[in-house]
């Protein structure tokens, strides 16, 4: 590897990407996962000989800066990177930071691929230089509704939606509600609570007498845990079960809730069952193996998103055969490829609407992919808490 | 009993007291008078350990007090009723008094009764918040609190400050009683006339140094004292 690196260096040094990440503060957990995803990408790319641009080969390097989980710092860091002539930006963690950074990227003529900015509004601002590899927020809850109406027997007739009040969760909640109506389910209640709540008993108490067949949560981890935990406390057992965005696939969810986590459905950007493959990382399963070999942990979808963003940038650069941001932008807009992460292709707003999300279910303490491709079978309906 | 030798003390880098020699005997009432800013309060603070002397020694009952912090000094049997009363403003009168006996192991109800007897006014106000007492009532409470610690020596800074004349009389009388019960008293007092009449011995402090000392009567009829402190030519 060493000699390859020297060759690349001799041919004209390294290719520099920049990433402003939440390494401390509120979002540090996810920020660090994202960083690992980028790091893995870098490692694999360099092992495979670097990035070929025209007739030159570059070693990939990524500089990281800590945005302290605040959007304005993320924006400032991206600006600093521009001064250091870093034109290719891998996105920060979270919609707020991504949105703040995208405004700067646009002004500076940099190029950013977002790995974790899911909120649809980011892509509705008319920005030309920001792309997102992940499925947008509106898909997060809708996916679960699609899956349930596709494979659950009996199909739930009524759903209640509980949502945090931040932009991302609200967009997801709206998407889920719309999908439910489309599938002929009745949305009997939509209740909101403050982002970061660990007490959602008021909302649950309100929903309880409505007896919904399915309770859906558009949430982050702590709120998602609270819904399950407090439902158990309050004796709320919907005929079908529970489904939640982002929370269930994370290991913490299962660890914190123990048996109560069982049967919960969750949506994920990626699982090792995701269909598709690419030259660098192989299939999703290959990716999982490789990642685990490198970092010791099985990858979460945050890792995979990050790697996918990095992959898209590299593919676009290689396609463009140039390091001109404008040329790379062009080739990004035309990118249409399969990958371990699923299809990567951007609509005119820069959203990757072509990639389906995965639905998992917690079974025997593990997230098992049940839709669209199935690793295991959906267990439905979920028994009451005290019978698990 | 209390023996101060060539004491120097002050605040930070400012010196206030110079070369002070002073003694208080068993069951003796000693008055300390002196003009405004002479350093009387500072002297009491040095004895009780609130400030650390820079030179000299303070010996109480044969044991050196230097290096002791206030809470240790009070355990040796010296009570200090500070200038400006310094009651625990948010606590009741009763609580303030009880705290005077903090370091005593046994319950101090006898002392308590004695203080209430000494200041009947306090008896009526036991559950009032000390911060809302009238000025004179606060003074009573402060002295009472000092007595609660069952001291061998009580140092009172500005005994009569803000007290009604008849009360001052009573109080001075009570000091006699207190003394006869075995306590010594070191008294800082502006009512020089009353103080010197009562005290066996007295010191006059001027700009940080002892200017005069002698028996109470001697000083009371000393020409310099009469001019400077009693305002009589």
């Amino acid at each position, binding site marked *: 590897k060493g000699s390859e690196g020297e060759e690349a260096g001799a041919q004209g040094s390294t290719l520099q990407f920049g990433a402003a990440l939440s390494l401390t503060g509120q979002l540090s957990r996810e920020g660090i996962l994202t960083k690992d995803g980028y790091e893995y990408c870098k490692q694999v790319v360099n092992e495979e000989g670097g990035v070929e641009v025209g007739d030159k080969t570059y070693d990939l390097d990524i500089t990281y800066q800590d945005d302290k989980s605040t959007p304005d710092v993320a924006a400032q860091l991206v600006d600093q990177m521009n001064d250091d002539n870093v034109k290719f930006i891998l996105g920060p963690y979270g919609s707020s930071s991504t949105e703040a950074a995208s405004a700067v990227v646009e002004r500076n003529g940099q190029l950013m691929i977002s790995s974790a900015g899911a909120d649809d509004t980011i892509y509705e601002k008319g920005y030309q230089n920001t792309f997102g590899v992940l499925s947008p927020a509106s898909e997060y809850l809708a996916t679960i509704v699609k899956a349930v109406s596709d494979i659950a027997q009996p199909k739930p007739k009524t759903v209640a939606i509980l949502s945090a009040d931040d932009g991302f969760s609200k967009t997801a909640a709206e998407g889920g509600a719309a999908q439910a109506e489309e599938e002929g389910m009745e949305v009997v209640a939509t209740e909101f609570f403050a982002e970061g709540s660990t007490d959602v008993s008021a909302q649950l108490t309100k929903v309880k007498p409505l007896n919904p067949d399915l309770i859906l949560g558009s949430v982050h981890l702590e709120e998602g845990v609270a819904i399950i935990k407090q439902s158990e406390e309050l004796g709320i057992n919907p005929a079908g079960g529970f489904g939640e965005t982002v929370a269930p696939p994370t290991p913490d969810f299962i660890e914190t809730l123990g048996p109560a986590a069982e049967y919960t459905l969750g949506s994920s950007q990626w699982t090792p069952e995701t269909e598709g493959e690419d030259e660098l990382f192989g299939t999703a399963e290959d990716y999982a193996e490789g990642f685990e070999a490198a970092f010791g942990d099985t990858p979460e979808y945050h890792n995979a998103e990050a790697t996918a963003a990095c992959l898209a940038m590299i593919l676009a650069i290689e396609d463009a055969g140039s390091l001109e941001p404008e040329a790379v932008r062009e080739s990004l807009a035309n990118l249409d490829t399969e990958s371990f992460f699923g299809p990567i292709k951007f609509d005119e707003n820069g959203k990757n609407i072509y990639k389906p999300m995965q639905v998992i279910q917690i079974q025997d303490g593990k997230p098992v992919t049940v839709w669209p491709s199935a690793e295991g079978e959906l267990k439905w309906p979920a028994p009451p808490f005290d019978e698990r | 009993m209390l023996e101060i030798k060539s004491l120097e003390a002050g605040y930070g880098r400012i010196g206030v007291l110079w070369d002070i020699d002073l003694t208080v005997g068993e069951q003796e009432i000693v008055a300390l008078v002196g003009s405004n800013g002479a350093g009387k309060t500072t002297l009491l603070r040095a004895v009780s350990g609130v400030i650390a002397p820079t030179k000299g020694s303070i010996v109480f009952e044969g044991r050196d007090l230097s290096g002791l912090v206030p809470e240790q000094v009070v355990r040796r049997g010296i009570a200090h009723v500070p200038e*400006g009363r310094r009651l625990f403003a948010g606590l009741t009168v009763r609580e303030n008094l009880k705290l005077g006996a903090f370091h005593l192991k046994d319950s101090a109800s006898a002392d308590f009764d004695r203080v209430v007897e000494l200041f009947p006014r306090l008896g009526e106000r036991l559950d009032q918040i000390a911060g809302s*007492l009238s*000025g004179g009532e606060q003074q009573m409470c402060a002295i009472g609190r000092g007595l609660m610690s069952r001291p061998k020596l009580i140092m009172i800074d500005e005994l009569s400050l*803000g*007290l*009604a*004349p008849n009360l*001052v*009389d009573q109080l001075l009388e009570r000091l006699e009683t207190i003394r006869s019960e075995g306590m010594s008293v070191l008294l800082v007092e502006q009512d020089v006339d009353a103080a010197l009449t009562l005290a066996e011995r007295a010191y006059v402090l001027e700009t940080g140094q002892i200017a005069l000392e002698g028996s109470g009567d001697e000083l009371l009829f000393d020409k310099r004292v009469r001019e400077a402190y009693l305002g009589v030519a």
Partner: protein
Amino acid sequence: MTTLLETDGLTRRFGGLDAVSDVSVTVEQNSVVGFIGPNGAGKTTFINVVTGFLKPSAGRVVFDGNDVTGNRPWDVARAGVSRTFQIAKPFRDLTVRENVALGSMFGPGNSRSVAASLTDADEVLERVGLSERAEARPGELPIADTKRLELAKALAMKPRLLLLDEVMAGLRPAEIDNSIDLIRSLQKDGLTIVVIEHVMKAILAVSDKVIVLHEGKRLAEGPPKEIASDDRVIEAYLGERYAKRVKEGGDA
């Protein structure tokens, strides 16, 4: 003589306690009125009610013909009434000079600039004998100087009525004489002054009239000599020793 301050049935209760109870007094223009009474008689409370720091439970306060009952403290102050606090309340982090200047800056009618106020302050400090400590902080002052500072702050306001709550406590006799002279000279300058003191010598020396409060009520009122020999006052307040001393010493 016209009346400058008048209270009518002034009452202030704290819970069940009538700290000031139905007190009606008058203070004549350019007079010095002494207020005495046992500890807890209600003297300070009376001042607090008059100056708006406490709301009266009943009764009226009239200053210079205007009803000022229940007015806010600063309104009373700007109308020309200044007071000292028995337990001194200096501005701890300002110098003595600045402390006094504040009186001049916001006192009645004389909205003086900062610079002018500082000059005023120097004058007042001179007058109360505190010039040497002008740059000191109040916390460094011994008790007597703290009292002088209270007085100086009040004086700097150039008030018409001055309410002094035990500004001589803690002074030695010779210094008390100075204060007596000061009060007299202030009276010459046209001020009206209410003096609360337990130092009888001073009260007797300066007062045109003495009012005795006892358990919140007015117990007696009259010329100093009369009051000093009033049996009720001796019984409730002065005590035998003082009565004796007053008889011996007479007026200074």
